[in-house]
């Protein structure tokens, strides 16, 4: 047993897991508001990161400005997607909606490769000191910042859903669309808003990962990692999504630890979350925090 390595891997898992949590949270937001399972969540990260990269390198904008432009772009992107593609599909069976988001995912992944090429591209340095040491693990400053940002986003969500008018409207819609509508909530507006917010939050995560690893098509894999996270936490629980993300991050790193110390199989890192997913689906399909659907005839 090598406890130093285990500790470092755990810390790494927490940091990456928090990012998974943020992406999972934006996934759950869409699901809660509009009952759409978004298979294109990873492409939100991809598009956001590439657009930000483009502002920073091609336009040579300072980071804060490029970042704000990116968020503005992503708001629009989310809105347009919802209005153009998802709105006509309201009322269609689950399979149609799932396939539409999968189709969008393929489309945007290929489009980004076409526009920006296949090379991983680095972001210009953003922080003065690139990394700091925490418990013997060199951690990128931007990761710490992302941890902070994740916390801020989570707090923002908490406030949004408990105190703001739009957040309450969204919760009402998630609870019962007809009742919400009769109380004067504009359901189409709520749907569009949820997509916009989700796109923006995912883009933040995309930029963070892009700054650390460089921007490349690998970002869209976060969209797949989100599934174990949300199934663990429960599809409709924001808190569950965050915890699920952290658990998946830890699980990956612990699986890697077991693998590197004893098994030497090589890819437990990638595959362990999916085994966990299947297990959870069999034992507790509604997740740790999800609401049990009660079926009535």
């Amino acid at each position: 047993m090598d406890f130093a390595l285990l500790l470092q891997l755990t810390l790494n898992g927490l940091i990456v897991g928090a990012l998974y949590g943020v992406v999972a949270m934006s996934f759950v937001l869409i699901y809660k508001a509009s009952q759409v399972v978004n298979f294109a969540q990873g492409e939100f990260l991809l598009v956001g990161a590439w657009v930000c990269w483009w502002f920073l390198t091609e336009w040579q904008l300072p980071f804060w400005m490029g970042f704000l432009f990116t968020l503005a772009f992503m708001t629009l992107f989310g809105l347009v997607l919802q209005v153009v593609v998802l709105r006509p599909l309201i009322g269609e069976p689950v399979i149609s909606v799932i396939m539409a988001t999968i189709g969008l995912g393929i489309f945007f992944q290929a489009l980004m490769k076409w526009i920006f090429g296949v090379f991983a591209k680095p972001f210009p340095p953003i922080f003065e000191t690139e990394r700091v040491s925490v418990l013997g693990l060199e951690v990128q400053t931007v990761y710490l910042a992302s941890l902070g940002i994740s916390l801020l986003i989570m707090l923002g969500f908490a406030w949004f859903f408990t105190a703001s008018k739009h957040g309450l409207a969204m919760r009402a819609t998630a609870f019962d669309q007809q009742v919400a509508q009769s109380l004067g909530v504009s359901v189409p507006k709520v749907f569009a808003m949820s997509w916009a917010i989700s796109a923006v939050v995912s883009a933040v995560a995309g930029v963070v990962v892009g700054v650390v690893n460089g921007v490349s098509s690998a970002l869209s894999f976060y969209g797949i990692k989100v599934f174990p996270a949300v199934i663990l936490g429960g599809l409709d629980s924001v808190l569950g999504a965050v915890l699920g993300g952290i658990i998946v991050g830890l699980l990956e790193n612990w699986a890697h630890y077991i693998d590197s110390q004893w098994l030497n199989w090589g890819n437990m890192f990638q595959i362990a979350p999916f085994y966990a997913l299947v297990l959870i689906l069999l034992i507790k399909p509604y997740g740790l925090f999800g609401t049990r659907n009660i079926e009535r005839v």
Partner: protein
Amino acid sequence: MITRKTLLAAAGALAIAAPAAAQDRIPVGHLMDNSGATSDVGLPYGEGVRDALQWVNRTRNGINGRPLDVSGFDYGYAAPRAVSQYQAWTGRNRVVAIQGWGTADTEALVRFVTRDRIPYVSASYSAALTDAAGRSGRRGVEAAPFNFFYGPSYSDALRAMLQWAKQDWQARGGQGTPKYVHMGANHPYPNSPKEAGEALARELGFEVLPAIQFALTPGDYTAQCLTLRQQGANYAYLGNTAGSNISVLRACQNAGVQVQFMGNVWGMDENAMKAAGQAANGVVFPVRTAATWGEITAQGGQAQPGFETVQAISRMSDTTGSAWRPVHYLAGICSAMLMVEAMEHAAQNGGQVTGERIREGFYARQNWVPRGFEGVCNPSNFAPDDHRGTLRVAIYRARVNGDTSQGSVAELMRAGTMRIEPVTTIELDRRRDWLGW
């Protein structure tokens, strides 16, 4: 039903009519990866091949007056797609030779090209392809009489780097036994030199650590780097292409890993240096050509006859002459020219350009450097039972001193922010027991 049938019948009629017009052109297949897992290096290599063949058509009027009819296909690094395209090429285009790409697809096609007698110049340098007569008797290695490639095999390149590592360890006054680790995806291409490298490392007195796996795509490999640091490896071989190696290099830099990375021929280049930044500083890797683009375009340096030719080829797709051509582009030119000269040999002695006669062309010359490419392409020697074209491995080191996020590769290389400097050249023995693995 009827409309689809008519359509297909019409398409069929067209297909029958088409080959008649292209009678005197020589059909050649060109398999590329412009969009798959290895597209980061596949793109420049494929451009090199394409530009060289186009240049042959324009300036040399093809092969003895017969222009090449190159049919390119981007297969996205999926071996089955390459196999189905091969069947289209042999069935529809009747190609006489193929410029190939990856390890998995090349090895899958070995049996087919042997059956159909089509010389296959791959960009996979898997040592299994060098056993042309199938005499090594190794399990899973079969005769590959129609497979050729330009440059040292993956295994030989790794053997040379390990010999260098041994010298380097002694020169640095290292204490104890150095530790060696193989890193790469579970995929035929990174796996190809694994056994050869680990065997020689043991022979040379390295301690061989359990291999570390990471995917062929970019990602977050911090966990792998933490393991690498904990293992205490001194020399690590990176078996993947540049794209994912960059991720490992950056993650390892962040994790504070002190290890000498050794890239494979596809593991490091100018684009990767730009993307990895200072994390790429110090990585050693083999270079297949006698000169890099910086030397070729240098003003007032020692000009070699090949420099002018290569720049002319580069202008095929870049009329401004400002593009920076990475090492893979040059290797692409050399492998295309080997095929072209073998075809010329086939055409000279009697005219018919068939697969078998092209194969003879590969054996026609000793210390073979394509005409007009002196100083760029390294000499190759092929024998009917030994397709190890070269055993000389030139090892270079990547140097990065400064921020690489702004400016193009060309600017960074010209400014000296990024450099590729020669370390040493290792000449391996042509050992019989190293043939085929």
